[in-house]
């Protein structure tokens, strides 16, 4: 297919990018492009202008800053998957990244693009939610930090304001006593998540001190499964408590199905099963 026409800007500084966005309020930001370009080709979106962040130095890269791993918005899945820092400090992120899209998508898709797109079936939104990351953004009003829990507002909608650019993601280093796992049930064609569950569990004296469980694929945007988290918190970690918590995972969530592959009812079931599996795997990985 063929995109409709648009203006193309490739600023070389963030300031320049913000200025272009100010002058073109309907413009879309082009990062890795692996969600945006397919949408342009199908003409699902026809923005008047694109602002390509690729030429801005410093937006890609991974560094350790205190107890946070700081990942630049333009960092690709490939870079994350192959990063020693990631493997060492947030191993679940490297493991889960291998399940994103396919090899070519991982080579070029970016963390910033994935989060800013808030695809209801994207993998990174749920993973970052469970990891308790923070998003840094620069806009006309300056720089700000958005807790990930406030970031995903709806389907393809985030807390980013018009003219704002996501610059980096700050992922807390996994504290001791913590394990994490991402379990994905991929769509056979798109390889997007039909349901994906990321669970991060912190254990103290065999008691669950904290559990973060995030869902993608089944809801309009990635969401925490707070009922499951609360059910587990303060409980001993064993198959029974995990099962009981997982049973409650869909509580409070608006689960959405499709008419071809997986209905609302089935996805609700999968949320329970995959939550149990993710929690079980996370507990096994506690170190």
């Amino acid at each position, binding site marked *: *297919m*063929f*995109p*409709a*026409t648009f203006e193309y800007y490739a600023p070389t500084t963030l300031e320049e990018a913000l200025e272009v966005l100010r002058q073109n309020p309907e413009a879309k930001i082009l990062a890795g492009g692996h969600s945006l370009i397919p949408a342009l080709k*199908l003409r699902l979106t026809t923005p008047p202008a694109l602002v390509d962040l690729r030429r801005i130095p410093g937006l890609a890269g991974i560094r350790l800053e205190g107890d946070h791993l700081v990942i630049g918005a333009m960092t690709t899945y490939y870079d994350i998957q192959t990063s020693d820092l990631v493997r060492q400090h947030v191993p679940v992120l490297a493991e889960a990244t291998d399940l994103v899209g396919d090899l070519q998508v991982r080579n070029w898709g970016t963390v910033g693009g994935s989060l800013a797109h808030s695809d209801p079936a994207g993998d990174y939104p749920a993973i970052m939610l469970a990891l308790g990351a923070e998003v840094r953004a620069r806009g006309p009003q300056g720089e700000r930090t958005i807790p990930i829990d406030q970031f995903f507002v709806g389907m393809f909608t985030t807390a980013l304001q018009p003219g704002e650019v996501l610059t980096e993601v700050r992922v807390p280093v996994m504290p001791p006593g913590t394990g994490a796992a991402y379990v994905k*049930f991929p*769509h*056979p*064609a*798109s390889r997007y998540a039909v349901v994906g569950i990321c669970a991060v569990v912190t254990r103290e004296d065999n008691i669950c001190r904290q559990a973060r469980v995030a869902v993608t694929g089944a809801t309009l945007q990635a969401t925490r499964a707070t009922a499951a988290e609360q059910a587990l918190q303060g409980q001993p970690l064993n198959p029974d408590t995990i099962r009981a918590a997982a049973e409650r995972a869909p509580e409070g969530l608006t689960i959405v199905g499709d*008419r*071809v*592959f*997986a*209905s609302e009812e*089935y996805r609700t*079931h*999968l949320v329970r*099963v995959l939550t149990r599996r993710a929690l079980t795997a996370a507990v096994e990985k506690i170190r």
Partner: protein
Amino acid sequence: MVQAPERPLGAAVKRREDPRFITGQGTYVDNLKFVGAVYLAILRSPYAHARIKKIDASRARAHPGVLAVFTGEDLRRDGIGSIPVGWLLPDIRLVPHYPLAVDKARYVGDGVAAVVAADRYTAYDALSLIDVEYEPLPAVVDQEAATKPGAPLVHDEAPNNICFKFVLSGGNVDQAFAEADGVVRQKVINHRVSGSSVEPRAALAVFHPATGELTLYNTNQNPHLIRLLLALTMNYPEHKIRVIAPDVGGGFGTKIYLYPDEVVACYAAMKLGRPVKWVETRSEYLRATIHGRDHITYFEAAYKKDGTITGLKVTTYANLGAYISPFGPLIPTFLYVPMLHGPYKLPNVSAEVYGVFTNTTPADATRGAGRPEATYLLERMVDLVARELNMDPAEVRRRNVLEPFENYQTPMAFVYDSGNYPATLERALELVGYRQLREEQRRLREQGRYIGIGLSTYVEVTGAAPSQIAVSLGAQAGLFESAIVRVHPTGKVTLFTGSHTHGQGHETTFAQAIADQFGIPLDDVEVVHGDTAAIPFGLGTYGSRSTPVGLTAAYVAGQRVLEKAKRIAAHLLEAAEADIVFEGGRFFVRGAPERAVTFQEVALEAYVPRKIPADLELGLEASAFFNPTNFVFPFGTHVAVVEVDPETGQVKLLRYVAVDDVGRVINPMVVDGQVHGGVVHGLGQALWEQVVYDEHGNLLTGTWLDYAMPKAADLPFIETDRLVTPSPANPLGVKGAGETGTIAATPAVVNAVIDALAPFGVRHIDMPLTPERVWRAIRAAQTQR
């Protein structure tokens, strides 16, 4: 790689077509460039059923870069007719199919208008500038519902949306049911699929106003048929049309037909005097390129206590889509019903088939075409009987398959040419380790793990076949194939064949057979195909007919060449023609092998005569039109082994064993490749692939984001083995191999999944066996208990 032995026939020779593909030098239609070419885009109906009240193209025409906009009315005014139907059944309800809709759009994707522009981006821009006023009408999608009173009519000419009713039977079905010990009944849905070749369709039409020659480069499997249909549709002389099917990126049946878009491309090229290129997008392919299968079937089978199946009654509603695709009427009739005896003794079968119009994309042949539907039904039937009798499904098959035979007259119609069904069945069971697997299954079930073993014992019909019979049954074209074998003065050979290769490897396998026949090196044979200007005639490649019919034509022509060569050799050797023996590329006098001339020497003599007399015609070439005396019937047994996650319903393929008998094999490597690909096509239908419409006829699987095909990560290696029972129906003893895998795999996988779920009491699940369907089946069975 196996080293080529002395004789090329039967050797795993590396393919000669590959060097151009692995280096990016393939000549697919979209790779062809012509000076001055312009681009065509088709505006397609977003409605499944709508009256076209008005088309205003003024905004599109005014758009910079747009050369023309055409509508259905324009084409009709210029004498473009309806696309003909290729197979007429008794009392068939014919309806017109104009290349662009004139009164109503009848499916999502039906062409409504066409834009020609300087480049493809502009052409697609202009589509959104055509203003069409539609009056949406109620749509009908389900073919059984479409036959009920009050259903919306797709065509006013077809009451109850019925295009045809086809009835055929063999034996005495009523008696079989009266004498049965038991009867199983089941409704089975063989759902709609898309062939989905990775190359979409494309057309490049070039018109020379001075000569009147129209050349169409087109993604098709049979250029002569396209030329014939184009001539009839456009009312343009056949001999002024040249159709070239260059490299084609897969067909799977979807590129057999003349489609509306190709006609529009030719029309536009003639109107504008410019080369016109049209390349389908994938989204268009899923809407505008034919779909396959789509049967709703009710069957009942009568059986005896010992597992013998004695009778079968079938009622099928076959969804034809919105128009009659050229071979749409053939697939659910003659390619389906007469195969309902399968590989079994099953003596009494009756079937009625309703061909039904709906507001969906037209349906026609997709890899297997009719035979997969018959085999699926039969193999589900056998497993259901086994379940009723609590017998092993392998044992029920043993008790029902035909004994080894040559020329077996089935009760309904076909004469099976040759078969040894018990041999492939036993070999497959041995290869998969059937008994051990059953034990493992029992053991794993105790641990709460569910593996399933599914069998599929099949016979299929390929190499269609006696033209006179086909024409008497409604074919509007013969079913022969043509070939010219031309020996050049240096003894090199060019074979011109009416078959077309788009992955099958004929450039290699046909050359192997000819090189073998003439005793010359493989490199001395070139195969030319896919061009109506080079080849006398051709019916092309579909229904696994290229080897049994196309290659046989080449072989017959080759024999004629050899007859003449013997005459020439007799003069060179100064011996009587009757005394000349041809062996290993040499002609010699019987009893005196040292008195010999080579094939090359004879070839030279044919063009540079020194010894042959003036009354012997010069040159060395022959043509043949091979019209087979019978179809050929490949067969085999496949076994699928799966594990089902009972909690999610997800199916994992553990193993797949395919034992086939496709008669004599020209190139085992190529046949194995056909089996691998065929199997994966078939199991794709079983597990993932499905074209889905909502009740309003909106296509819900309109891109490859939704239309789910097998990927490498979903699959194990395919374990293949082969037996060889030569066909008596042709001199090479060959059968077709392109569809066996697809036909066998679908029921093997479905039977395996249902076998895995036997402990839950699951008896049947309709395809595709998506995790949700499997999960629901388990739940429903548990609730019933």
